[in-house]
């Protein structure tokens, strides 16, 4: 069982320490992109294997709302990581199926 990344809700926003041995950078980036309508993510410099992420919030955001957003970020991060695992594992098969699907269409000769 993987422990969730440490989260601190502070004056600058929500600070999350993401362990890049557990989560791919692309999964963190996609999570930030997906939540862009609710917060702005700023990525710090990686130290060791830890990527500091700060989710900047609107000034009016309450602590309760910030916790909801932190939970949403962590849940989305898990989902994105799983997507990346599936995508990485099945990418060669997807290319194979696509090549097979269009192998007799004459597209290559054009």
């Amino acid at each position, binding site marked *: 069982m993987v422990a969730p990344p440490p989260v601190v809700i502070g004056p600058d926003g929500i600070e999350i320490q993401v362990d890049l041995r557990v989560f791919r950078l692309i999964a963190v980036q*996609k999570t930030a*992109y*997906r*939540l*862009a*309508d609710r917060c702005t993510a700023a990525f710090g410099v990686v130290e060791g294997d830890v990527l500091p992420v700060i989710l900047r919030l609107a000034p009016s955001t309450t602590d309760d709302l910030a916790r909801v957003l932190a939970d949403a970020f962590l849940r989305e991060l898990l*989902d*994105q990581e*799983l*997507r990346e*695992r*599936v*995508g990485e*594992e*099945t*990418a060669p*098969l*997807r290319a*194979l*199926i*696509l090549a*097979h*699907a*269009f192998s007799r*269409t004459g597209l290559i000769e054009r």
Partner: protein
Amino acid sequence: MKAPFDPREAFGATKVYRLLPFRSTRLDDSRHVITNDAGEHLVLDDQTLRALVDRSLAPGAPVLRDLEARHFLFHPPATTALDLLALKWRTRLERLAEFTSLHIFVLTLRCEHNCHYCQVSRQTEDRAAFDMSREDAERAVELVFESPARRLKIEFQGGEPLLAFELLRHVVLCAEARNATEGRDLGFVVATNLALLSDEMLAFFRAHRVHVSTSLDGPRDLHERQRPRRGGGSHALVESGVARVRAALGADAVSALMTTTPAALREVEAVIDEYVRLGFHSIFLRPVSPFGFAVKTGLARRYDADAWLAFYRRGLDHILAINRGGYPIREEMTAILLQKMRSTEASGYVDLQSPAGAVTAAVVYNYDGRVYASDEGRMLAEMGNHAFALGHVRDSYDELFGSEAVAEWLAASMTEGAPMCSDCAFLPWCGADPVYHVATQGDVVGHKAFSEFCRRQTGMLRHIVSLLEDDPAARDVLEGWA
């Protein structure tokens, strides 16, 4: 010396499966929708999805059979699943080889209605300024037949196209004459408010099998508030017009569309009941486009995707209840999405395609001879943005349809490469709307986290999948629409 046969175990299914490519998206707090590139889907809870990827599902678990049957996994060395997926994938994309099948002729911008949400119409008698010339119409017919599509549909729009009935007749006769040698599957549709419908027109529509599409916004009060005309009586004209079309052309020869305004949001049940009262078996719940007068009047901003989704869910509930009561009526957007979910056949619905249906499935010949990638592209041009203008009917087919600019935004419109779309489970059932995203975000792809289009489409799909999973009575009705 090599043995004549591989050992027995080479022919048996291994216990260890291999995953096939799939995408996943949360359905709710505890469940995920997974889809493959052929559009097949399953709903899995959190634990099952992770166990599937971790290979920790209990041997013999029933879900394994479902996952294999719908091509989410396979057992090597068998490769039938790969062949089937390739075949289904190719079938879904076959429409691209057909290219443009829907050709919209905007015969005139003139209209005797003054609808609040209308994008383009003009209150004028000036035919020369706002009607398509015969020369341009004839050239547009030539362009229609340069399309490789076996099925060609010519749709007449306006303004009010019946104000230019002689031109409509001319286009139909020109197209039929050309088709005598072409032998395509040629059809016609006229989008009309029916106010000017004459017996002569009806006779022509009957003789040339022209389908009629009209606008019905709901009960009399609502319809006439939204679709005023000098002298009033818009609703009565629709009601009598529908009856006359059915009597002359057949019960299925007329369909109707509604536009969802803030007033309609509050009255969805009454709108649907009016469709039932007038004998329609189909209704299309659709939002206002963020174009034209709808933007100028602020109408496009008066409700957001969440408000529209609440309206849609209430409306669909009401429609399902009417079906259970014995009157068959379907909601068209839901039916289109169900067809995409249940069939590997290519969908012809222009607004949900990847690459975008603009140009690849539909094109618009405007009253002034200009050619646009879609109806929405022409409306955007009315607002001064010509991003989707292809040229003029005088240009060659290759100049209009084969330009670098068209290729560029079509490539950009492919959801398979768009951020957020590319790993969304709803991708096989959704599509790109580049005109919408240019209109609202100034970008062909758009940031989907801020996209009302994305919020609406994924919201509808979540609702439909939830109904199929959790509501057997709703599922019984919905299965009949696919």
